[in-house]
């Protein structure tokens, strides 16, 4: 938890734009609330049509103070309804839920050397990489604040990638992102990452293949991996890291009931410290776990 109590807030829709085929960027403003967000956290969206009672969990893509950007794909009735919500309308949204990526572990691992942090993401695993890259970049650049500060956002909104300092002494952030076909959020990633490598299943753009295949073409593996995407991809990345004994954090996805830890609907199997397997809640204990601790086979 980020140190405050979770809540459900009425939030105003500032924008809800189609950014690729069936991919929407939803920008929200929490009403009268200052909310701290860690990259890798998600929010619950509560729909207006009361025939759909469960919240829709969606990762935070980018955040700044009282506003929030989410990127979602229309896959079913709920996201379809969501895509019809217009700017100005209100929507009920939870404050950020779950634990995000463990940033301090990344920073301490790659500290003081020209090391490489790899963000590996596939499909709708890409959106949370934006806030993650931003936060890591801030950390690397020596800013103390984990969360996005308004002026950082502002600065990066100018697309000031070129003006960032050289990577000589500082770790490099490389995003390796895969899509089925259409590429999205590449420019946003380029604002914060030193390099952005794209793979597409269709071969329409970038590397023809998937993220893991692309990763394996690296001459030099990264020093820290942070991943989000389909389970099979996360498993493959984790196995790759396990083999090479590299640290990896993965963000899991599971069908949720409550999203805050009450229903035990979203369990995953975690083998902490190589001990016995424990059932953890993706929503509360995750969604980010160490890739080498996740028990993949079931």
């Amino acid at each position: 938890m980020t140190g405050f109590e979770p809540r459900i807030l009425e939030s105003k829709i500032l924008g809800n734009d189609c950014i690729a085929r069936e991919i929407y960027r939803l920008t929200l403003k929490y009403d009268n609330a200052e909310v701290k967000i860690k990259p890798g956290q998600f929010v619950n969206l509560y729909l207006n049509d009361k025939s759909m009672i469960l919240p829709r969990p969606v990762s935070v893509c980018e955040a700044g103070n009282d506003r929030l950007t989410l990127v979602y794909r229309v896959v079913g009735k709920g996201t379809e309804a969501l895509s019809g919500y217009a700017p100005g309308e209100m929507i009920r949204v939870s404050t950020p839920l779950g634990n995000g990526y463990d940033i301090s572990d990344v920073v301490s691992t790659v500290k003081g050397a020209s090391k490489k942090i790899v963000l590996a993401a596939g499909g709708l695993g890409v959106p949370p990489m934006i806030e993650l890259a931003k936060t890591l970049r801030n950390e690397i650049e020596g800013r103390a604040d984990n969360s996005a500060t308004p002026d950082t956002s502002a600065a990066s909104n100018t697309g000031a990638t070129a003006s960032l300092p050289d990577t000589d002494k500082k770790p490099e952030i490389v995003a390796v992102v895969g899509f089925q076909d259409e590429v999205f959020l590449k420019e946003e990633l380029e604002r914060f990452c030193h390099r952005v490598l794209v793979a597409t299943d269709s071969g329409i753009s970038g590397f023809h293949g998937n993220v893991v295949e692309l990763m394996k073409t690296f001459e030099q593996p990264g020093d820290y991996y942070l991943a989000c995407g389909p389970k099979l991809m996360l498993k493959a990345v984790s196995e790759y890291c396990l083999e090479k004994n590299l640290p990896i954090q993965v963000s899991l996805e599971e069908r949720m009931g409550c999203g805050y830890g009450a229903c035990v609907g979203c369990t995953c199997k975690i083998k902490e410290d190589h001990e016995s397997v424990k059932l953890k809640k993706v929503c509360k204990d995750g969604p980010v776990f160490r890739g080498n601790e996740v028990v993949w086979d079931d």
Partner: protein
Amino acid sequence: MISLGKNQKVVNSGNSDSDLDLRVTIAGVTLDNPVTTASGTFSARESGAFYDINELGAVITKGVSLEPWDGNPTPRIAEAYGGMLNAVGLQNPGVDAFIRDELPYLKGFDTKVIVNVAGKTKDEYCRAVEKLCETDADMLEINISCPNIKEGGISFGADTSMAAEITRAVKKISKKPIIMKLTPNVTDIAEIARAVEAEGADGISLINTLLGMKIDIYQKKPVLWNRMGGLSGPVVKPVAVRMVYQVRRAVKIPVIGLGGIMTGEDAVEFFMAGADVISIGTAALVDPEAPVRIKRELIHFMKNNGYRSLQEIKDALL
């Protein structure tokens, strides 16, 4: 956060004027108010982040069993039109861990604690109950919707004689009041209610979930790993109200009514049907503050409509 601090706690009334009597006594235990949490939809630390647990008449815990259970693989949750399906499969750390880690924390609040008990055999129920009788839990709720592994997996609660047998066995050893939680997947709920009353049950709670199924037509397989799951939420309310109404007229013991209660008005509907206490289940997953919101709405309804006690609501049905 809308909950009041502990020292501002409201016992008999929604605000300063204490003209409302929300207290209810079932099986010799007095609850400050009739709002409780439905088993499996409340988790002390997580739910307690949204509201003050002291506001509740009682907490009813997730089902605990003699040994730890892993429950079902995921997916365990599916949405249904106006409701949800779950096949959590009663994952729990076992009664010993519960008594060690959970119960003391719950007993730290100024609310009653009703422990929900699950089992796969009569013996498992009894041994879990025995252990819980040595604790300061206030009451036990026996979930007989569990499959009886000795009888080919048919739910204990689906068979009148099995329901009676579990009740008899548990009552024999229990020093705590016993609430039997019935499954709605039966032909004649009144018959089962009468059978458990005859065996000495101190109360009845209903309904558990309706057995349902959802198929993902694109993946061509059931959405839930377990294929079938329990339907809950607003959609089950008409069935739940009907069963509470039928059971109220079949037995004399107190009834805990639940199934799709989303608002204070829904709660009133259950009281009019015959419930003494209500539980909030799925509503709390959909709106974490639901139990205290519903309590507030209940108080509001009573004030606006001139009811001074729960008994008056219960007597209102023409």
